[in-house]
Structure formats: structure tokens, C-alpha cells
């Protein structure tokens, strides 16, 4: 028997008793699972006359839909409502002091747990290009205790501090893989010793302070300069010292006079007073004269080159008296 397709929406009525005799064939048809009897196909259509649902929207649902399709309302629902909701929830949550603290604590914990991972830890500082004392100084001034997290290290700040040290000319600071803070330092090379009333310093070629000395003898290899403001014209001093090499051991040092010109001081209290302008040229002239006339070997107290057009020699007291004696002896009054 053909299976009848049944409309599931309709209630199925069942015969009150199981068919028998010549109707028994129908018993092979659909049995109700609960065994109530045989369904009466089509009996449910008694209910069919009930009114079907109206497909048209009701007046209010129509209006509501139109209202929801209005662009302003749509925008408000899409952006305004989520925003207000998030804002309300956020402010309700943060209104309690306890919850706020807990949130801050939680954030701090998470931060710390990330920052203190071994990948981000810096364990030691390596310093290249600095002597022992300078390294010790650098270790002293860098204000971090290792190991520390690389998030806490401000590399630029460390560099500023290291460069701030006098003996350091320049420095690069970086964090090397493996948790090492690498500090590469270029030290200042001292070229002169500068003696002042306060003490003895060594300066590099730019006149910058490198270190203090206890005694001149500690750096006997370096030439000596003296006088106020001498450190501001170290470059000129270096040029003069270079030009004064023929004087050799006789040179004692340079004296800055009135913060504007140099005196070259030799042993036996001899001085070569150089002009403000072009002092090297003046010194070379003196040396040339010395070469020929052995000027400085004589009993001369000072060679005054301050006026280039009129170089002047001051003799010592002995020499003057000797000169007078010789003139008297020769007697011609020349």
C-alpha cells in the first residue's frame, strides 16, 4: 500500500478500534506509534477552516520596521547603543575603588610577568674601549642593578650618563642578544698637562678635561701649559709645541697671558713672548734667528715678538752690565 504523505501540521485523528473483516487490509496502513488505532487520513481537515495567519505585517510591526530602517536610527543602533552600553558597563565597573585597584594590580602583574621573562632580562654590562679606572667609573654611574628587565633600561639615558663622564669622548650603548648591555666607549686621549692654582689637570686636544693629576711628574711625557684660559686654546698650543720641537729639552712649557697670547718658557728663565696674531709664524722666526745666531744660547732674558715689525730682546742684568763693561773698555762709546 502506498505511503500517504501526511501534512504534519494537521492533527491526526485515529479510529477508535482496529479494523477487522474486509477492512482488515487497511490495518497494514499507518499504525499510530502509540497503538491508538489507524489514522484517518484527511480527518484533520475538519480544522482546516480555521483562519490562516495573515501574511501582512500588522500596522505596528510595519511602523516599527520603517522606524528601524530610518538611517539615523540605524546609525544610532549600530554605533550609539554599543558605545553607550560599553561606557555604562565600564563606568559601573570602575566606580568601585576595590575593583579599580584590582584591575590596576592585574595589569601590573601581567606587565611584570611579560617583562621578567628570561628573554627580556639583561644580566651584565660589557664595556669595551675603556681603561680599568674608567670602566669602574662607568659601572659606578650606571644606575641599574643587574639582572634587570630590558623594558626598564633606557639605553639613551645610559648613553647620556656615560658620555657625561669626562674621560669619555663618545659612547654607544645597546642591548646585545644574550642579555648583555654592551657599552662601547672611545676615551679622550690626553695631550697636555695644564697647571692651574687649583691643581694639575690633563686635557685632550679640544681642551676638554680628562683627569686630575696629583703631580706633574705622573705624566712627564706630556707638555705643560699654564695660565687662565689656556684650556680654551689647546689647539693653538699644540701647533706652537709642534713648531717648538727644535728647542728640544729646553722647552719648559707655554704660558697663556691675559687669555689672549702665549709665552714660550725655556729653561734659564728665558721667554719668547708671542703675539696674539699668528704666533706660530713669530716662533718660527725666533727659531730661525736662533739657528743662525744662536740667539737663545746667549744671555737673553726674553725675546719679545709681540710687535712683528719690531722684535725686541731683553737681556739679563748680568749681560747688560757685561755689555757696559765691554763698551767702557773699548772706550769708543759705540
Amino acid at each position, binding site marked *: 500500500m502506498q505511503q500517504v504523505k501526511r501534512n504534519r501540521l494537521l492533527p491526526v485523528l485515529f479510529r477508535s478500534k482496529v479494523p477487522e473483516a474486509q477492512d482488515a487490509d487497511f490495518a497494514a496502513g499507518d499504525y499510530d506509534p502509540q497503538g491508538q488505532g489507524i489514522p484517518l*487520513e484527511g480527518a484533520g*481537515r475538519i480544522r482546516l477552516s480555521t483562519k490562516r495567519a495573515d*501574511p501582512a*505585517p500588522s500596522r505596528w510591526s*510595519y511602523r516599527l*520596521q*520603517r*522606524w528601524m530602517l530610518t538611517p539615523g536610527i540605524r546609525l544610532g543602533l549600530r554605533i550609539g547603543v554599543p558605545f553607550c552600553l560599553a561606557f555604562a558597563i565600564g563606568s559601573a565597573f570602575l566606580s568601585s575603588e576595590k575593583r579599580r585597584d584590582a584591575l590596576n594590580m592585574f595589569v601590573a602583574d601581567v606587565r611584570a610577568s611579560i617583562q621578567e621573562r628570561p628573554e627580556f632580562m639583561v644580566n651584565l654590562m660589557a664595556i669595551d674601549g675603556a681603561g680599568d679606572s674608567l670602566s669602574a667609573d662607568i659601572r659606578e654611574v650606571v644606575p641599574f642593578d643587574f639582572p634587570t628587565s630590558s623594558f626598564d633600561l633606557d639605553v639613551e639615558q645610559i648613553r647620556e650618563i656615560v658620555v657625561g663622564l669626562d674621560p669619555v669622548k663618545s659612547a654607544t650603548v645597546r642591548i646585545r642578544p644574550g642579555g648583555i648591555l654592551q657599552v662601547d666607549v672611545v676615551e679622550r686621549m690626553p695631550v697636555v698637562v695644564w697647571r692651574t692654582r687649583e691643581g694639575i689637570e690633563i686635557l685632550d686636544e679640544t681642551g676638554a678635561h680628562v683627569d686630575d693629576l696629583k703631580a706633574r711628574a705622573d705624566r712627564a711625557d706630556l707638555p705643560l701649559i699654564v695660565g687662565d684660559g689656556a684650556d680654551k686654546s689647546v689647539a693653538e698650543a699644540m701647533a706652537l709645541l709642534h713648531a717648538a720641537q727644535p728647542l728640544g729639552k729646553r722647552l719648559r712649557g707655554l704660558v697663556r697671558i691675559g687669555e689672549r697670547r702665549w709665552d714660550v718658557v725655556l729653561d734659564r728663565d728665558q721667554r719668547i713672548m708671542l703675539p696674539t696674531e699668528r704666533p706660530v709664524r713669530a716662533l718660527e722666526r725666533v727659531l730661525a734667528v736662533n739657528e743662525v745666531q744662536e740667539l737663545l744660547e746667549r744671555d737673553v732674558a726674553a725675546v719679545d715678538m709681540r710687535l712683528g715689525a719690531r722684535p725686541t730682546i731683553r737681556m739679563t742684568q748680568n749681560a747688560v752690565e757685561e755689555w757696559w763693561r765691554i763698551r767702557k773698555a773699548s772706550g769708543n762709546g759705540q
Partner: protein
Amino acid sequence: MMADLYQSQRAMRQMRRQAMQRGVVAILDVGSSKISCLVLRFDGTGRLSDDNSIGSMAGQTGFRVIGAATTRSRGVQFGEINAMQETERAIRTALQAAQKMAEIRVDHVIACFSGANPRSYGLDAQIELESQMVNEAEVARVLSACDVPEYGEGRDVLHAQPVNFALDHRSGLSDPRGQLGQSLAVDMHMLTVDGAAIQNLIHCIKRCDLELAGIASSAYVSGISSLVEDEQELGAACIDMGGGSTSISIFLKKHMIYADSVRMGGDHVTSDISMGLGVPMANAERIKTFCGGVHATGADDRDMIDIGGDTGDWEHDRRTVSRAELIGIMRPRVEEILEEVRARLDAAGFDHLPSQQIVLTGGGSQIMGLDGLASRILGQRVRLGRPLRVHGLPQSATGPGFSSAVGLSLFAANPQDEWWDFEIPIDRYAGRSLKRAVKWFRDNW
């Protein structure tokens, strides 16, 4: 009375302008068998393609269909509303579905309907020009000089379109403005319908919280969409076979010059089948659309159709009928409709037109073999028409049943100048200077 109509039509034009500014308007075709709604979005004026040809969309590129819905019509008979609540619900259903598809709220609607006894009048007038040149005011003056016939109490003018201008002895001008001459004559086509039908439709649309931005006769709009350009120019008749009424429109020189409707349609064929075979209307409709036809052949005698039933009575539910019988039921009714159309066309003097092209459209035109039958009754040059293609129209709405909806879209995008698009001549305002002042303020501020 004339002024009232003038004002209400102008108000609708104003609404249409607002809708264009907002860029969205709904198209509502209230038919007897279905109510279809399209939502149009206007994106700028229609542009021609680069090579200045009219392009594949026939120049109709100024708008796009963004929502479409169709629902079974309720409470509409012969193209007129006769159960207001039901119709309102059906309109709401269609509009809601279309709005949902378009995802935008629509506030303006342009509607068309087919019934309400449309009647055509040809008006003409001639005036002497005050100035040498024809300007807007002169056109308005000649239009208002037309002597309106007595078209009966309770009827309203639906369309009043100037179809032809003549300047001195030159006729056939479509736009005389700016031309020089002595006397200007105009021929105008005026279509009147029962005012009650319009009022009912307006009321239904108001109850759906919508503004009516225009109203048109479906005879006119289905002619716009299903007649091709040449046919509109050379003269053709468009026969829109709807559910409850069959509307006829005759076009010449791109203007509608005659419209009428026969109060019979596809629903009558269905009810014939329903009565003849003793089946419910729904079954009859299904049988008609799947198996219907108007030409019986020998094979149709052996082609048995299961007409079914739902009573639970085995004998009753397994009735069959041969296709020849079905055709025997359908054919006389279709013939009757076409004979009636023939009579209307004859009355309109269609056989005097230069071209005798007839285009059948509307849902009823899908009956198999209809073109053969129609060419026997109406004349040799009959074709089945489908609406023009427009942007974004879903495939399901491209059939001939949607020619009036599509035509209404075209009408909404490019309405033809009607009487009320010209200013009322000044002399009509005489003695109402206060109103004029108010109007001036309203227009200018």
C-alpha cells in the same frame, strides 16, 4: 474644480521633487492579481555613454532598482480598490518586503492602477501670441485656453498632456518655446478616471504612512515600458492584459493619444476554468498557467491534466481533464477579451494610424498561443512585449507582468510635461492677491 485638481497635481509634483532630492522613491503597481513594489534609488541624471549613443539601457540609467517585492493582491477588483483594509494590508506587505530588501526607509510612493473607467478626450485650443516669441507663459496660456469638455461629476483628470503644438501653419512641434510666430495651437490628450478610485488609493497609501508623489494610469506606463522607441514614434497600441482588467493605450509621436480599459482579464479566464472544472480558484490558476492555451491540436485530446482536489474523496481528488477541454474553456473568454479590445481600438480609430503595430503585454499575455489568436482578431502585426531593462531589476520582475511597474519607474525618472507643470496664467489668479502674496512668499522663502 479645475483649480483644485491643478493644486493637488502640483502638490504631487512637489512631492516627487522632494523624493528625487532624497534619492529614494517607491513604485507601487496596484493590480487586481498582484501588487508589486519597486524601490528606486536615483543617482544623478541619466548620462549617455561615451560615444553618445543611447547605450544598452536605452538611456534609462538615472536610477537603479534596489528593492523589489510582489505580493498577491487582495481587495482589488477590475483594477479598483473595493476592500480598503485588505488592500492596505497587501500594500503594506509589498512595501515592507521591498524596503527590507532595499534596507532603506521609503517615504514617497508613485502609484499606478488600471481600472476606474479611464476615458480619453482630445482637446485643442488656439491663441494669438502676445509677443513674437513663444515662451513658457504663452504655452501655459494656450493650455489653459483649451475648453474642457463636461466629463462628468465625480471624475478626475489623471493625465493631461500636450501632444502636439502648431505654430501658424507648422504643425508637429514637440516644443515650440523660443520659436517665432503669430498664433499658437495645441492638441492635448486628457485622461479622466473615477475620482472615488483615486481617493481610495490615496487613502490606502496615507494609511501606510506614505506620501503620494505621483499617480499614473497603468495603460500609459505599460505602454512606456513595453513599446520600443520606434513603435512609440510611428504609432502602436499597447494592450496590457492584467488580472482584472485589460488596458489599452495608443501611442503616436511618443505621446499617448488614447487610453481605455476593458473590464475583463486573466482572473475571468481563471474563474471560467474554476467554474467549468469545478476546482478552487487557486487550482484553476495553477492549471491555467501550467497547461493553458488557446490553440487545440490533436495531441491535446490525449494530454490528460490532473486537476486534483483536496477533499479526501478519492474519486473527486483524482479527476482528470484533457487539455483540449481546458482550451475549450479558455479560448472563448480570451476571444471575448480580444474582441472587446478590437471594438475599443476601432472606436478610437486605430486603423487610421500610419502603423498598426499591436503589443501585448501584462501577465495575461503569457497564455500559450495568444499571439496567434490575437493576430487573427486584432490584425497581422502583433507581438508580445516585455518591459524595458532597467538597472538592478531582479530576474523575477522582468516578465511581461511587470511592464507597468517598470514603466512607472521610467515615468518616475523622466515624467512627461503635463498641463500642471506650467504656471497658471496670471489672469486665473485675478482677485486673489492675498493668496498670491502668500504663494509668492512660500515659493521664495
